[in-house]
């Protein structure tokens, strides 16, 4: 039986599933080792000089899952994903790349946690030096910090 058919999945189980998904997605798609460093509570998050992607969860578990990282790190990760030099990536590549990462991490979290009755939205991405976006939610946001080869990747979950 899937986990959410037998009752509510505890948020901590989803957080664990999320961490597994991050490591798995980066290893498979970007040949990058992501090492969990620590997690912290964030009442509010502001995206400034970074790129970010996110998906919404609806259904038996509502919330948001997102990733953010300095633009240079995102460029390196996407470069590995598509096997193209970083300086040959287009703006569309970066947008699609970080959106797909968020999509796969959201989907992986859903699968790992057995959240059959949860729908993962199509992803959205934010990339650009001039862009300012604010992550606002009435749910508690946890930020998971991962060390990757080229810097730090932040994974956000508001559940």
């Amino acid at each position: 039986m899937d986990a959410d058919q037998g009752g509510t999945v505890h948020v901590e189980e989803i957080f664990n599933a999320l961490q597994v998904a991050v490591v798995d997605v980066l290893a498979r798609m970007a040949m990058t080792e992501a090492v969990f460093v620590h997690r912290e509570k964030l009442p509010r998050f502001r995206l400034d000089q970074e790129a970010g992607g996110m998906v919404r969860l609806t259904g038996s578990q509502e919330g948001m899952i997102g990733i953010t990282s300095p633009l240079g790190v995102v460029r390196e990760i996407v470069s590995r994903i598509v096997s193209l030099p970083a300086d040959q990536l287009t703006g569309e590549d970066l947008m699609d790349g970080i959106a797909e990462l968020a999509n796969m991490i959201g989907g992986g979290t859903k699968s790992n946690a057995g959240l059959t009755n949860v729908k993962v939205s199509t992803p959205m991405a934010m990339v650009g030096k001039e862009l300012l976006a604010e992550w606002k939610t009435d749910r508690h946001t946890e930020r998971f910090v991962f060390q990757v080869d080229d810097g730090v990747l932040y994974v956000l979950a508001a559940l």
Partner: protein
Amino acid sequence: MRVLIVDDSSVMRKIVSRGLRQAGFKVDDILEAGDGQEAMGILTADSNFQLILSDWNMPVMDGLNFVKSVRGSGGPAKSIPIVMVTTEGGESKVQAAIEAGANGHIKKPFTPDTLKATLGQFMK
């Protein structure tokens, strides 16, 4: 072999293209479409493909409706194998795709080995 990749994400189209080659398949030509409707236009003009790989969530025409359109087209494209490539691994979605005429399903993230195992029956 000629392959048609249908996905609204340019990065995913590149990932799938790279994966096919890393899996060791001899691919002569890969054409890309950003959604099901664009793919139908390509297939109407040229149906000489040995495999179609299609995303599920796409604007204009999604993967499920694309599969239904191809299978209902009555043209030579009708019998081209279609494998869905999607994040969603839910049994109901896979079952819906199979019932619509898809021949298989690959869940993202995938490795070249996954592609080889799933697509080997279609790719010589």
